[in-house]
């Protein structure tokens, strides 16, 4: 079937009542999680992953996509109304958004955030549609040695970029790889580190690890600090909506931020928190109303919000085509794909093309739901943003327990989740990288298969790992992955100085 027909079929499947309901509910949950300061998109996706087990694969993925997009947008509500970014991706939005709120223009700021997020997300779908099949075609050329290097590249890039110390990031990644060896040896049939527990036969369950590392660890982070009452949300007194003149004024900023956000999203290791500052800075640089910046500029809000939402579509490209998630949320999403029995890579665009294009179409429609929920539900979400951590801490733990229990209706999974929660907490306290641990867990089996098959094919001679130009390109990318933290820290420093 050609791409256009697949796109059409995808939309047809996506508009089924169950999918539309899933989009609405998931986006609303995502916005709720996003607007709660302290909770992250990765945590939300990990926590709700078990709920998708009962759904069709495409619907399950749409739910995860809805939570992702909703959470990235939701962060702006708290940023604008209570001057506390709900997620790090909205940090730049708080600068101008709260100034507008102080001037009694909260609805205007929220309208700009909604519109820019919608445009950024929608435009990012264009690149998702057009770049993904191209990259997937490239991935078709990959054989066992290339898969080994690819898994190593994925690990170096996330370990290097998203940690304060590159060495600690790499250590976390290798620790994840080591944990992934728990279970039955895939080639020799030997029990590895199972301690006689048959539940570990297939290895550590990725969902348990995700819930523990991202959700339970967050509870412990919240529990160690004094519970403070959040600032009261500002009253929304002005009217929602944007005039034609304002939309015309914001359009160039949104297009610029879309390009920035998309590129940042595609580039593994960067993420929405970097994109929002880049979008904001470029909006300031090109603005004809520079004097408004710092005092409440709608262009500043649009620049930040369009960029962070443009990351969502962009970051899915390397995740779906190559199996390299660029940040923690996409690492969790990739875990979701694997749990649903799908291996990221070219197969998603051949064998499972129907499902993939339904997910893409769902991703487009999610942006419309996000716009509607954002415009009509902002006031309600402002109240939710004030929910105390004292209520969130036990509630999230109960959801962690029920979520991990639901995987196999087994208490052992709850204990594994708890152990990973403690590991995640300690990792975060001591600057190790939970995302790299998860990625090690996910990429471990792929890398092990690639390495051992390659060696088996070449009678144990490792020269096969350096035998094709693609191998060398991937080795080069691994080196780039190790060196990229230096480039990223320079970029971030420059952003902060600006």
């Amino acid at each position, binding site marked *: 079937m050609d791409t256009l027909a697949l796109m059409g079929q995808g939309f047809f499947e996506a508009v089924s009542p169950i999918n539309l309901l899933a989009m609405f509910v998931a986006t609303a949950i995502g916005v709720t999680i996003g607007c709660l300061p302290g909770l992250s998109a990765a945590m939300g996706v990990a926590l709700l992953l078990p709920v998708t087990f009962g759904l069709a694969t495409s619907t399950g993925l749409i739910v995860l996509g809805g939570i992702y997009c909703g959470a990235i947008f939701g962060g702006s509500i708290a940023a604008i109304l209570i001057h506390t970014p709900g997620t790090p991706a909205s940090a730049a939005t708080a600068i101008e958004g709260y100034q507008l709120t102080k001037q009694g223009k909260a609805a205007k700021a929220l309208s700009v955030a909604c519109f820019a997020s919608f445009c950024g997300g929608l435009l990012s779908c264009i690149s998702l549609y057009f770049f993904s099949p191209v990259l997937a075609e490239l991935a078709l050329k990959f054989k066992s040695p290339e898969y080994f290097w690819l898994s190593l590249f994925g690990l170096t890039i996330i370990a290097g970029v998203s940690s304060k110390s590159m060495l600690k990031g790499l250590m976390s990644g290798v620790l994840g790889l*080591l944990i992934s060896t728990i279970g039955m040896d895939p080639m020799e049939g030997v029990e590895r580190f199972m301690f006689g527990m048959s539940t570990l036969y297939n290895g550590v369950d990725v969902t348990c690890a995700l819930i523990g590392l991202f959700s339970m660890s967050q509870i412990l982070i919240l529990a*160690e600090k004094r519970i403070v009452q959040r600032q009261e949300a500002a009253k929304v007194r002005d009217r929602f909506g944007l005039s034609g003149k304002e939309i015309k004024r914001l359009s160039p900023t949104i297009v610029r931020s879309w390009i920035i956000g998309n590129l940042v999203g595609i580039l593994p290791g960067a993420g929405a928190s970097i994109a929002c500052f880049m979008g904001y800075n470029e909006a300031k640089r090109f603005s004809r109303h520079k004097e408004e910046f710092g005092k409440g500029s709608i262009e500043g809000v649009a620049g930040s919000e369009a960029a962070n939402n443009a990351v969502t579509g962009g970051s899915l490209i390397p995740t779906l085509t190559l199996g390299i998630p660029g940040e923690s949320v996409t690492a969790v999403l990739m875990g979701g794909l694997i749990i649903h029995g799908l291996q990221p890579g070219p197969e998603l665009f051949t064998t499972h093309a129907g499902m993939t294009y339904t997910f893409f179409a769902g991703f487009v429609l999610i942006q419309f739901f996000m716009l509607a929920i954002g415009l009509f539900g902002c006031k309600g979400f402002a109240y939710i943003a004030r929910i105390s951590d004292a209520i969130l801490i036990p509630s999230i733990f109960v959801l962690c*327990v029920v979520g991990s229990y639901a995987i196999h*209706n087994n208490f052992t999974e709850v204990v594994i989740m708890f152990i990973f929660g403690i590991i995640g907490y300690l990792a975060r306290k001591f600057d190790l990288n939970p995302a790299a641990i998860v990625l090690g867990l996910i990429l471990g089996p792929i890398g092990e298969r690639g390495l051992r098959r390659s060696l088996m094919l070449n009678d144990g001679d490792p020269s096969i790992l350096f035998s094709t130009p693609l191998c060398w390109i991937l080795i080069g990318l691994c080196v780039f992955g190790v060196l990229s933290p230096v480039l990223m820290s320079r970029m971030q420093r420059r952003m902060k100085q600006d």
Partner: protein
Amino acid sequence: MNKSDIGVVAVMYAVCLTFMGLTLQFPPEAQTYPLCLEFGLLALITIFLVVNLAKARRQGIINDLPEVFSGFLRNQFFMVLAGCVVYLALMFAIGFYLSSGLFLAAIMAYLRVRHLHIAITVVALSAIIWAVFGKFLNVPLPLGALFD
């Protein structure tokens, strides 16, 4: 070198060496891949240690623990953690719903949430879990040894 990094190095060495000891008990053909990872991890920890020792010679050992644990409320943290452990143990005996209700109420009361908010949270969360996991996903949540 930061004081917290000494702990990180010690724990990572311990984990790595434990895995290595267990790997050496496997048949030789199954040892290769895990040993590669363990040697890789050992190398990374050692490089990290060497880099930090070089730093320590220049700047001395910096006590960053007050910074790492700034604002850390020991009693609150361990009470919540202990609550979580007791909750998991209780689930065996009295089942999911009852233990969850007790856990939610106890932790929120300890964290000084208003009674009305506690009641609303317990009822709302139980209803959501019952609808999503009990009815929609058909997950047989534990009833507990006392009621099973």
